[in-house]
């Protein structure tokens, strides 16, 4: 197991809840118009991890999603693809095949997603399976129970072990912020994940409410910024769940730009985990181009 040489305890700064909420709401009064809006909307599309994580997922559903990932709305030329398709491990091979050399990555959840309640051995096997099937990215969950018990070393070691098992695949660490309770804990979990080698930190599984919110994302972005200030290393961010409209997504991008900087405005370092966001963004793009809103029926539901 990789325990690296990080010295415990990891001491995180405290977070003022009122201040964070106030700062987060300030991003939402930025007015994003015209060229900036179009550029922003296309950026959003290109940052989406198109996701299906249901018990009733089938090959047919995954195939449809993979097609949509590459052809968001073919009647509008010049649209980007999404960043990745996010599935359970048993659909990785299929997704990989369907996406071919389109550049769209395959992300797989692993580590006994979504609860994370299993042995480390099973979690690592879960990761290995996804990696062997060709997953470009692994979305793991932290052991929230251990975290709440104060067993931070365990949480750290587990992330570090999963990171080793990922090989060349990039690791996104899901904190499940809706189960952490306070911004202080979110910050602490962020710092542990980053120290243990996360390439991305991610808010939520999408199975727990609240999922991503702007304030909780801001707390995580600040952890990323502090790490960057200390080490010069860039860590990515993925808010997931609850971001279903274009306007909100644009406000997230404003938050990323003003908190971290424009270097993060790429799908290499920022992602949206979402299933229904793409269609609203597409609708807004068509509105920008034609001046009128189209019916939702003109956009494929996958």
């Amino acid at each position: 197991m990789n325990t690296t040489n990080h010295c415990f305890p990891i001491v995180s700064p405290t977070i003022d809840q009122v201040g964070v909420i106030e700062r987060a709401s300030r991003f939402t009064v930025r007015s994003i118009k015209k060229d900036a809006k179009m550029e922003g909307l296309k950026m959003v599309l290109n940052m989406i991890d198109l996701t299906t994580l249901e018990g009733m997922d089938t090959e047919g559903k995954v195939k449809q999603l993979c097609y949509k990932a590459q052809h968001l709305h073919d009647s509008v030329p010049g649209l980007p693809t999404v960043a990745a398709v996010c599935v359970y491990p048993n659909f990785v091979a299929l997704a990989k095949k369907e996406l071919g050399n389109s550049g769209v990555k395959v992300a797989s959840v692993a580590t006994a997603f979504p609860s994370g309640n299993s042995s480390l051995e099973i979690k690592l096997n879960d990761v290995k399976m996804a990696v062997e099937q060709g997953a470009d990215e692994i979305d793991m969950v932290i052991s929230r129970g251990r975290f709440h018990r104060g067993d931070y070393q365990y949480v750290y070691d587990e992330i570090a072990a999963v990171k080793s098992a990922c090989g060349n695949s990039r690791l996104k660490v899901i904190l499940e912020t809706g189960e952490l309770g306070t911004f202080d804990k979110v910050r602490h979990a962020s710092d542990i994940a980053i120290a243990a080698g996360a390439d991305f930190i991610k808010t939520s599984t999408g199975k727990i409410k609240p999922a991503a919110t702007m304030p909780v994302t801001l707390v995580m972005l600040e952890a990323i910024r502090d790490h960057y200030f200390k080490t010069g290393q860039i860590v990515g961010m993925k808010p997931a769940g609850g971001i279903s409209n274009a306007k909100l997504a644009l406000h997230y991008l404003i938050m990323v730009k003003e908190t971290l900087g424009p270097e993060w405005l790429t799908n290499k370092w920022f992602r949206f985990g979402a299933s229904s966001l793409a269609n609203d963004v597409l609708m807004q793009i068509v509105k920008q181009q034609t001046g009128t809103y189209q019916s939702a029926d003109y956009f494929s539901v996958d």
Partner: protein
Amino acid sequence: MNDSKNGSWDLSPAPESTGHIKLEKSYDLFINGKFQPSAGGKRYKSINPANEKVIAEVTESTEADVDKAVKAARAAYDKHWSKTSPRDRGKYVYRIARMIQEKARELAVIESLDGGKPIRESRDVDIPLAAAHFFYYAGWADKLDYAFPNRKPKPLGVAGQIIPWNFPLLMAAWKIAPALATGNTVVLKPAETTSLTALKLAEIIQEAGLPPGVVNIVTGHGKIGAAIVNHTDVNKIAFTGSTDVGKIIQKSIAGTDKQCTLELGGKAANIIFDDATIDQAVEGIVNGIYFNQGHVCCAGSRLFVQESVHDEVIRKLKHRMNSLIVGDPLDKNTDIGAINSREQLATINSYIEIGKQEGAEFYQPDCEVPSEGYWCRPSLFTDVAQSNRIAQEEIFGPVLAVQTFRTVAEVIKKANNTPYGLSAGVWTDKGSKIFNLTSQMRAGVVWANTYNKFDPSSPFGGYKESGFGREGGLHGLSAYLKT
């Protein structure tokens, strides 16, 4: 990470429209319920500080006009307002509050055009707070006996009110709302560079059907303020502005029985301890000094940072300063608008020169500013000494002077080592530290883990050369009553 400039995804212009506002080409004086020309008849131009274009002409009043206004206020007090039932007074004040809300968009645009402040602030802060003050004091109008039990509070009579250019409509609201609610009549003079929203308020007061003469608004320069102060039939002077003028007013009314409240300058200490939530504190520093271009008497213009976190705070502050957008006040994305006047810009620039000569380290982000108009980028001086002029004198601009400290005792001593005492800020995660500090700080308002928060129910005012008397809350009522 790019610390110098936001290189990509720049926001497109998002200007607030101006088509809906109604402005006269030239404004008369509002006396005895009517707009009427001055006997002297001179006019001067009110310009937009963002492009130096003329917005409207405003009347330069004469002493005769002031006398007329005071007589109108006296007559209104004797004939109408002192006989109006408290409940009806409240109804009028409520009506003004509602009409400000109804016209909020127009008032916000005019405020930004005339004064240079960002539309985000006039829309989200100035105008809503102005309405809130009228609402708040309207509620007190018929409950004064409960505010001062067994005291039988009585109005003072005619109040002469002189307000500054940094929050034009809001300061008018702070002055007029409690005066009316307590049964006084008013002669108000707005600042010469920012009279337009006060004149729009006069239109609202007219439309609200207040008895003629209850509120009179005379425009012009400082000597008109002096004429109000020196008028023998004025019972109360309420002034917000510079400490220099406040001293002149104090001298002028010495030996008279005029009541007086003064809200003057400030050089507030904003104190960051090493256990503060740094990211939120940085936001508080920005709100403290760059809000309204730093044209704020309670601005947190002296920053005290505990030495162990100094480098982190300054790095994060500089990073945040680079995300501030300076420019067109009417653009919805503007964070820092235009400096209010050419004179004020000259003052600020002279202090920046002084700071450099004093050897402090200077920093400004290299953001673009428009070619016309009066602009000052957010500015930061580090390595400042307590004996530097930039740490002692009120600059009234977006210029922050940063000092370090080691212990609680040291910072209290330094923070209080100023002739001013209007406000202060303290940032720490420890509640006990907050209470220790706030009880020792000689400042009228002390904000803990926030800054520049205003509410009509909270009194505001200063110690020492920052003035005396309180505005807002119950305290604000007593400033207009014999109790």
